[in-house]
């Protein structure tokens, strides 16, 4: 409590994104486009434009060829060029150039050699050598040998006033291109998503600009991924893209408060805190397509609400109601379900008139059959992943349990059938033997009706852990696994702190003798300083060097996850939680 008796809580702007963005610098930024065109009067008093710039932005001065964003990385910031030039590489760069792991699968001989060479002590690594963390970070963000790497590749130069990275930041999707600084001293303004969101809310020109860019660059391909739109002629797709509305629900930083929420509230209380996208009984203004995040589908049941299904990226809701309304214009069919944002959700809404005019006439007979009144909910436009009625197949409680634990985010969630699990730990040993003697999961976790959600990385559809990684060490492989590159991880713990499921462990790494490794001292020329005995000068006061570790889904092993292969009792599975049919089949084996 302060002197006036008010409670003081930590607030969003207690810690600015970058303390170097001083009021003087903000003054200068306000004179640059696009901020010079914004009307500060439109911003509310508690969120002034200058305040957003002061607290939600960071100034970056980059060396030539320094990477600003890497293709495939997740990030939560957009960038505005202030001075100099940013070069967008329009074609994919080789994995090793971007600091990704090798990616190739190990053959038989490599696997055997690795097993024979398994280190006896935990978390042993060759000495991290040789440089301090800061130096590491700089080095790792530099694109080397640019003329050779970019030879023959198409690039596009961005000039002062141009913005990039906003689609990935707001849509929580991977960056689609690598961008580097084209000149020494290139200056960028990094705007974190919170600030970007507020700028969009109060500066219509910013909102229009960003939405226009999304319409031009991302929306068409996203729409074309849907079966019901893929078959439409180009003009129809263009018309739909021009009229599609964007909606965001929930908080992008839901994961920060979620653990607290889990501890303090009941499941039905948590359900009520989820922002409503569509209420049961409402008329559908359009077809709702999930662009990012997860939507809970529920309906009233006695005095509460029963979750019947969930929708993930690319799935849509409302086609049935729109179809039935079009068939019988006199009878108003309203939504049979409520839709709620689980955490954070980004949806697209195609207006009903366009669905009726452009989409319904081109539906196939099979699709129409599913939309008839006896059909079931959630006609998904992409291959129907959601079961006809997930609840029926999965059994009462299970859908709600998975929703509540947010396990639905998992692309390869580890589930253990405790009625078959003999607690032999062969899975843990299997994992350890595939990872130099270090198991990458803990055989424990929440459980319901004999099913355990085991504490192993779930390789989330929305991998929040990736957002703050400064070096891109944690990344998604093309095959979908979220993987940490041990060589480029600098042990900053950002990913581990961001994982809402506590599935990333920070470990102290050890040298060949089993001793903790410490950062070492470098001289002005970045050479290691040795002491009089010829040993590297350790900075042990900084604490031992750490690395982030987690399940990598054995992405480099020929046979796939060792845990699954090691379980003799068919008790363990890795499942994409959006594949509810597979999940139901596994539960009802």
């Amino acid at each position: 409590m302060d002197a006036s008796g008010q409670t003081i809580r930590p607030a969003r702007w207690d810690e600015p994104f970058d303390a170097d963005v001083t009021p003087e610098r903000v003054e200068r930024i306000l004179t640059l486009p696009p901020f010079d065109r914004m009307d500060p009067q439109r911003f509310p008093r508690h969120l002034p434009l200058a305040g957003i710039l002061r607290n939600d932005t960071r100034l970056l001065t980059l060396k030539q060829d320094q990477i600003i964003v890497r293709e495939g990385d997740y990030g939560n910031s957009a960038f505005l060029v202030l001075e100099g030039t940013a070069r967008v590489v329009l074609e994919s760069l080789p994995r090793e150039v971007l600091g990704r792991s090798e990616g190739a699968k190990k053959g038989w001989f490599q696997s055997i050699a690795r097993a024979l060479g398994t280190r006896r002590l935990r978390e042993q690594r060759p000495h991290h050598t040789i440089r301090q963390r800061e130096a590491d970070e700089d080095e790792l963000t530099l694109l080397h040998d640019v003329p050779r790497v970019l030879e023959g590749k198409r690039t596009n130069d961005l000039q002062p006033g141009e913005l990039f990275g906003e689609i990935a930041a707001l849509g929580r999707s991977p960056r689609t291109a690598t961008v580097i600084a084209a000149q020494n001293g290139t200056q960028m303004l990094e705007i974190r998503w919170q600030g970007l969101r507020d700028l969009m809310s109060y500066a219509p020109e910013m909102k229009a600009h960003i939405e226009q860019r999304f319409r031009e660059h991302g929306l068409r391909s996203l729409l074309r991924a849907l079966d019901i739109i893929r078959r439409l002629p180009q003009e129809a797709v263009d018309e739909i893209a021009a009229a599609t509305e964007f909606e965001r629900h929930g908080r992008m930083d839901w994961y920060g408060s979620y653990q607290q929420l889990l501890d303090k509230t009941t499941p039905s209380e948590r359900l009520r805190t989820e922002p409503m996208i569509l209420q049961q009984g409402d008329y559908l203004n359009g077809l709702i397509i999930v662009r990012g995040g997860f939507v809970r589908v529920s309906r009233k049941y006695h005095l509460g609400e029963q979750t019947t299904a969930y929708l993930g990226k690319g799935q849509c809701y409302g086609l049935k109601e729109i179809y039935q309304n079009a068939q019988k214009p006199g009878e108003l069919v309203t939504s049979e379900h409520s839709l709620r944002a689980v955490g954070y959700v980004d949806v697209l809404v195609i207006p009903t008139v366009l669905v009726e005019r452009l989409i319904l006439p081109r539906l196939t007979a099979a699709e129409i059959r599913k939309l008839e009144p006896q059909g079931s909910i959630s006609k998904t436009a992409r291959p129907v992943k959601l079961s006809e009625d997930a609840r029926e197949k999965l059994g009462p409680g299970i859908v709600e349990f998975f929703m509540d634990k947010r396990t639905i985010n998992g692309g390869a969630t580890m589930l253990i059938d405790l009625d078959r699990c003999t607690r032999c730990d062969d899975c843990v040993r299997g994992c350890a033997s595939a990872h130099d003697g270090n198991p990458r999961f803990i055989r424990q976790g929440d459980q319901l009706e004999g099913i355990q959600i085991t504490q192993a990385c779930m390789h989330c559809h929305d991998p929040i852990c990736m957002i703050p990684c400064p070096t891109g060490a944690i990344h998604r492989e093309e095959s979908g696994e979220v993987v940490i590159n041990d060589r480029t991880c600098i042990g900053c713990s950002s990913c581990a702190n961001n994982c809402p499921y506590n599935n990333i462990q920070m470990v102290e790494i050890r040298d060949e003798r089993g001793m903790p490794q410490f950062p070492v001292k470098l001289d002005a020329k970045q050479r290691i300083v040795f002491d009089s005995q010829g040993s590297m000068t350790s900075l042990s006061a900084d604490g031992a060097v750490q690395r982030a570790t987690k399940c990598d889904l054995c992405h480099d092993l020929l046979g796939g996850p060792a845990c699954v292969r090691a379980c003799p009792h068919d008790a363990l599975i890795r499942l994409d939680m959006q594949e509810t049919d597979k999940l139901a089949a596994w539960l009802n084996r």
Partner: protein
Amino acid sequence: MNFFARRRLRNTLLCLVGMVLAYGLWRMLKIALRPAAIYTGFALLALVLALALFNGRKKLPFLPLMKASSWLQFHIYAGWLSVFVFLLHSGFRLPTGMLETILSVLFVIVALSGVAGLFITRLLPPAITRSGEPLVYERIPRYQHALRTEVEGIVEDAERQSGSTAMGNFYMSTLAPYFQRRSSVLLLAGNPSRHSQRILGQMDEYCRYLDEELVGSMGRLRECVERKRNLDFQNAAQRLLKLWLFVHIPFTYSLIIVALVHAWVALVYGGRL
């Protein structure tokens, strides 16, 4: 029919077909006056070696050698087949001679421990799951210690607050031995809850002589008894799930060694080497 039922049916049929084939071959060898015992002996040795490979597979989970669950299925049904081939090899007679007797006893131990293991691994996991709070086997001594400390704390508090030694006496006579004991696998031989039920009955009985406050403390102690029941059951069940392997695996290796000696002796004394 669900996946497991279908798999069981398929594998049982395959196993029966294997048995019929083995019997047919054995009969033909007999009719043709060929040394059937040599053939069945080698078939049996090959089967036992193949069965033993399962343990080797477990040590190499990083190699793409089929899932351990497929190996286990093979292990189970080839195990049944090997019992049948063993009967053919022995001519459905009791063994004679020292080596044969040792070998037969070893085979019976390995086979019976395998069958017992199969039942244990199918029956105990659901019981463990339903027993209560999940416990990590290696940490059970720690949980037990913490529980005991908690119980002693409740008893001490009750004594201090009531100024009576009623709870202390009850603890010393009834609760202390119960909370100090670590369960053995023999617990599973009868009703695993019998100890806890007896203690709970004695607690109810004793409550007649206590005032309201002490009855409240008894309520907390009842929860501790319930937790101890879970702890004892999980300890016994998880230990048994590990123990049977300590019979099955070492006896398998002994069996292989004695079987090799037996084969060598049979070949040498049969004039085939």
